[in-house]
């Protein structure tokens, strides 16, 4: 097949909503974009273990500790699953991790915010996982087969996380004055960053066009954000939380909640590295990755010894 024919076949697959599989020919730019998005997603799952891990040792009840630990474990599992899915595009995990450490690969900006009180664990589950679900449900229809299948599997667990987070918030809103204050404080701090998780507005997002054409992305940033806002505002009201947006109003004709202006300066400032935790997150990952090196070397040396022994006995 000539390059032209390959491209034609690829475009036809995309056109017919068929999945692109690892063995299929794909344009370089497509491979790069999907790989970038998947590694970024995998890194996000893994870096996200840190802000939540910050409260594992201090969870207030045994049940809460179990739920939180299990949730973090799920997220790590999502990371593993996404790393393997990304490896189908020809890069191995150690290289992805190196890129993360060098700042060449990104992770979700949301994890550069600190978890300051127990309600933050509720807010993350409810808002951050809630936002992630909206995005991931849409990505179940992404054109790259392994990514799409990873999303189907992951979405099931994410909805648990969202419910558990909401339960923490609801419990606190039912509790003492101090607990209510903590919950509202967490809401105030996590609401806007959660909205920013969907990325810049469509008119400012230069990735979107191409990604939509190739069906890597299946809905625009703004549409996904709106979906999240509509389902979340009502949930906030139900438990008595105030949405920290004085311009928030319900549009009776469109039947959508309309929000005030998002402070994109804050977003770009965090992207640039000035969030409260950017430095800590990467430094932590590098530290423990480096500390684990002797373990990885031992694993390698041991398996080489075992292989040598086995081939010696089979002679």
């Amino acid at each position: 097949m000539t390059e032209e024919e390959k491209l034609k076949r690829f475009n036809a697959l995309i056109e017919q909503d068929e999945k692109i599989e690892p063995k299929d020919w794909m344009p370089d730019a497509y491979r790069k974009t999907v790989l970038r998005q998947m590694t970024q997603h995998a890194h996000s799952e893994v870096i996200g273990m840190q802000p939540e891990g910050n409260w594992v040792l201090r969870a207030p009840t045994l049940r809460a500790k179990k739920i939180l630990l299990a949730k973090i474990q799920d997220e790590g599992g999502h990371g593993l699953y996404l790393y393997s899915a990304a490896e189908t595009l020809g890069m191995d995990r150690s290289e992805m991790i190196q890129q993360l450490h060098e700042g060449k690969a990104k992770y979700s900006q949301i994890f550069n915010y600190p978890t300051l009180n127990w309600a933050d664990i509720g807010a993350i589950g409810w808002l951050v996982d809630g936002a992630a679900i909206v995005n991931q449900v849409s990505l179940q229809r992404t054109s790259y087969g392994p990514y799409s299948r990873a999303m189907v599997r992951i979405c099931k667990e994410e909805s648990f996380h969202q419910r558990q987070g909401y339960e923490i918030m609801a419990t606190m809103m039912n509790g003492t004055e101090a607990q209510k204050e903590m919950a509202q404080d967490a809401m105030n701090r996590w609401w806007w960053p959660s909205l920013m998780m969907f990325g810049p507005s469509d008119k400012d997002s230069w990735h979107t066009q191409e990604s939509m054409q190739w069906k890597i992305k299946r809905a625009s940033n703004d549409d996904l954000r709106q979906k999240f806002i509509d389902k979340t505002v009502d949930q906030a009201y139900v438990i008595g939380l105030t949405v920290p947006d004085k311009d928030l109003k319900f549009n009776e004709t469109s039947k959508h909640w309309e929000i005030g202006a998002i402070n994109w300066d804050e977003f770009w400032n965090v992207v640039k590295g000035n969030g409260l935790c950017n430095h800590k997150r990467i430094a932590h990952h590098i530290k423990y990755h480096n500390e684990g090196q002797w373990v990885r070397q031992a694993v390698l040396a041991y398996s080489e010894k075992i292989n040598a022994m086995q081939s010696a006995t089979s002679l």
Partner: protein
Amino acid sequence: MTTKEALYNYVLRLADDNLILAQRLAEWCSCGPILEEDLAMTNISLDLLGQAEDFYEYASELNGEKNVDELAFLRSEREYFNHLLVEQPNGDFACSMVRQMLYATYAKHLYEALLKSRDEKLVALATKGLKEVKYHFRHSSEWVIRLGKGTAESNLRAQNAVNELWRYTDDLFEMNATDKVLITQSIGFSLKDIYPLWKAEILHVIDAADLAIPELGNVITGGINGMHTEYLGHILAEMQFL
């Protein structure tokens, strides 16, 4: 001490071991040498938390006043009966794995012995716990062997871990008035019965890992009587934060 009081103390001891070790393992969250192992340690921590919860529930039944979380969180340092081994710091990965192997081997034989207890509830909890600690034993002993036989550095680290932790192993087999009461009632059993089994199994792993048991002049005990190393206080301070 009545039988019920002894049983309560004993169940708390079992619960505390599980809780404190679970808390230690949870410290590995996002700090593992590879993601797979990060998750494996969280997994063991979750198992132990589940066992702790079960034992606290039983203790709460026996106590009749305090609920599970009050028992788990709201006691002072001198009221925890866990063994000294489980409160020791994680150290490096070798240290955590050796600690896990020493404890899992102990828990395995302990639960096996408890299957013969006259107390039905203890039998049920031991049955449930046994399945899990068998897996923890397999996981940790395989790692100890892998590290012992891996590189010169991993062997040294594993040996240092054994040297460091061995002094806390006698503590696992200490008995007090609680045990006496339960043994006469055929609810508990003498830990002397399982010591040789434990020792033989540990020696087997240590040997397979090209490691050695240290000749130690010192042996430290006290956990079951509420005498602890200074580490426990810090674990509790963090755990009791809220």
